[in-house]
């Protein structure tokens, strides 16, 4: 229950507050990326940080993702704690070598001798018709490759707490924030983009999923926006007497398999909903995990909803067709409940 004393923040304000508090606490923390200065980050991740910390610690960069992410790695190995923003995750292809071959592997290749304490922060998600090169989530592209933690929080509370954890973590953390959950003035306003956020710094552990709705009939695992859609679908389904348990995955790496398996052992049915591509995605990994570890607990086949292995199309009816939504979740559950 939200009391009058509770502060309600948007996702972006929770995020920039986390960064500000960590920059305050630790002079080694700094931020670099395109348009993080005066603009405050295209998706508001760096709101007001330039004014507060100056251009030496809030650095606008050229459009040189390999250059500045590589520089963040170099600075991190020298004891700084950079946060680099990759404006859209869709741009990973121009700088993935630095990310996956260096940021993620240096600690291992050095036998633990070198640490790379940095955060790679990036915006994910579609739903506003930004087409094939600006609408992806690419969760599994990162989760497939070892050596980096990958998180995808879905509430302002978790955004703040997980960003603080990410900055304090001695490992590289890919922090994916969902555009629609930033609560920006120029996007569709949704309730989920606002939430109670304590002012004092706090951490939320990386690597823990969260049961956000209890239920007995099936388990729906969601990620970021899909969690919110799943919750809405669950409310609708409850009217038909179907009680879905909804898990907010929150962390892709490490993956909290226990929470998922515990839930499936209780509900005996699993639907995984993902805004990323279907093949070799998080839905595959979670379904596979259950097929390995809780096969005999399943009362119906595992089901997955995800982008059906097509690029994200531009036009509204087309995009709506490929990104899972409340309706498609509801329908999938109804079908599942009839399967034995």
């Amino acid at each position: 229950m939200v009391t009058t004393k509770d502060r309600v923040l948007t996702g972006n304000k929770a995020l920039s507050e986390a960064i500000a508090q960590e920059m305050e606490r630790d002079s080694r923390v700094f931020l670099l990326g395109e348009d993080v200065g005066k603009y405050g980050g295209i998706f508001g991740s760096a709101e007001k940080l330039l004014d507060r910390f100056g251009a030496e610690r809030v650095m606008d960069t050229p459009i040189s993702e390999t250059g500045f992410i590589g520089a963040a790695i170099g600075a991190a190995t020298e004891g700084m704690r950079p946060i680099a923003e990759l404006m859209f995750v869709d741009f990973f292809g121009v700088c993935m070598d630095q990310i996956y071959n260096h940021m993620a592997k240096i600690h291992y290749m050095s036998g633990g001798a070198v640490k790379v304490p940095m955060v790679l922060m990036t915006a994910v998600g579609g739903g506003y018709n930004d087409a094939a090169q600006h609408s992806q989530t690419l969760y599994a592209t990162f989760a497939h490759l070892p050596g980096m933690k990958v998180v995808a929080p879905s509430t302002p509370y978790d955004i703040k707490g997980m960003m603080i954890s990410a900055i304090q973590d001695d490992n590289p953390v890919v922090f994916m924030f969902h555009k629609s959950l930033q609560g920006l003035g120029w996007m569709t306003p949704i309730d989920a983009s606002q939430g109670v956020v304590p002012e004092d710094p706090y951490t939320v552990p990386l690597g823990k999923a969260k049961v956000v709705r209890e239920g007995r009939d099936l388990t729906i695992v969601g990620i970021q926006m899909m969690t919110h859609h799943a919750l809405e679908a669950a409310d609708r389904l409850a009217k038909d007497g179907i009680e879905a348990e909804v898990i907010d995955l929150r962390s892709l790496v490490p993956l909290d398999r226990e929470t998922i398996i515990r839930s499936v052992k209780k509900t005996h049915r699993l639907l995984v909903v993902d805004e990323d591509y279907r093949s070799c995605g998080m839905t595959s990994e979670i379904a596979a995990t259950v097929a390995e570890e809780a096969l005999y607990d399943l009362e119906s086949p595992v089901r997955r909803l995800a982008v059906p292995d097509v690029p994200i199309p531009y036009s509204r009816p087309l995009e709506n067709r490929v990104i899972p939504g409340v309706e498609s979740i509801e329908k999938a559950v109804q079908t599942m409940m009839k399967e034995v």
Partner: protein
Amino acid sequence: MSEHSVPLERQKWMYETMVKIRHYEETMVQVYTEGKTPVFNIGAGTVPGEMHLASGQEPAAVGICAHLTPEDTVTAPHRPHHIAIAKGVHLDRMTAEIFGKVSGLGKGKGGHMHLFDPGVKFSCSGIVGAGIPQAAGAALACKMKKQNQVAVAFAGEGAANSGAFHEALNLAALWKLPLILVIEDNRYGISVPKEVSTAVKSNAVRGSAYDIPGYHVEENDPLEMYRVSEEAVDRARKGKGPCLIEIETYRLLGHFQGDPELYREKDEVAGLKEKDPIMRLRQHLLNQGVQSNVLDTMETRVRQAVDQAYDFARDSEYPDAEAALEDVFAPSIQ
């Protein structure tokens, strides 16, 4: 504005095309707000998604496209309309694409940043710098086919700091490809001014890193752009290899529609408007004795073409949702 050697017919074509582009972009400003008031919501309305307009940047596009044929290739970045129009992209189908309609160039799959018109060898993309190597590849194809076509890549001054710029120019120079890189220096990459992103004043000097000519066009001058492009295209067609042209141009609108533009002074744009290249070229044409009613007729004509394109787009149908699953792969047999 110097005037040496630009044929009057070409001046008129440039003028007409610039007016067309400007009217196209100004109409888009309006259309884009449809369904987005009173509250701006990027995903709502007639045209959703990001919208990067090029009002003010017409000279870059017309000055070089005046030398191109439909067989020459052009790649454009995320801010593509002016270039597309100057290159002769099918305006109705381009607009329909931007509206997300099935009659669009890409059946509604691409959108404003992904316009493909193979009929005039035009394409664009939303990834900064990415079109430069692709244009180099088109130039390579021209060379391999032993035809005298050229390829032109457009990019913003921000893109000149991307790895793709460097790799593609080195390749093009090494292989003596008929490639011209046009850098539209509109002073900003989103909010970041050139001096915060670029270690040199003019990217023209970067030509020396590849032993190719680097041209610099000042003051958003379409006639100067024409002249420099003539030399550049001519060199390329004759097999003398690539070059780069940087033109000082101006972005009259925000980076995208909805940009609060807090990073620049309000009067900056007012100052730019006074130097509007379209007004300047109109005056220049009048000075050369062109009758104003001739110009008026041209204006009316292109305005009609633009309005018709918007009507076409508006009247077209949305694609069927299931079409989203098609066109991932072409039928396999060549």
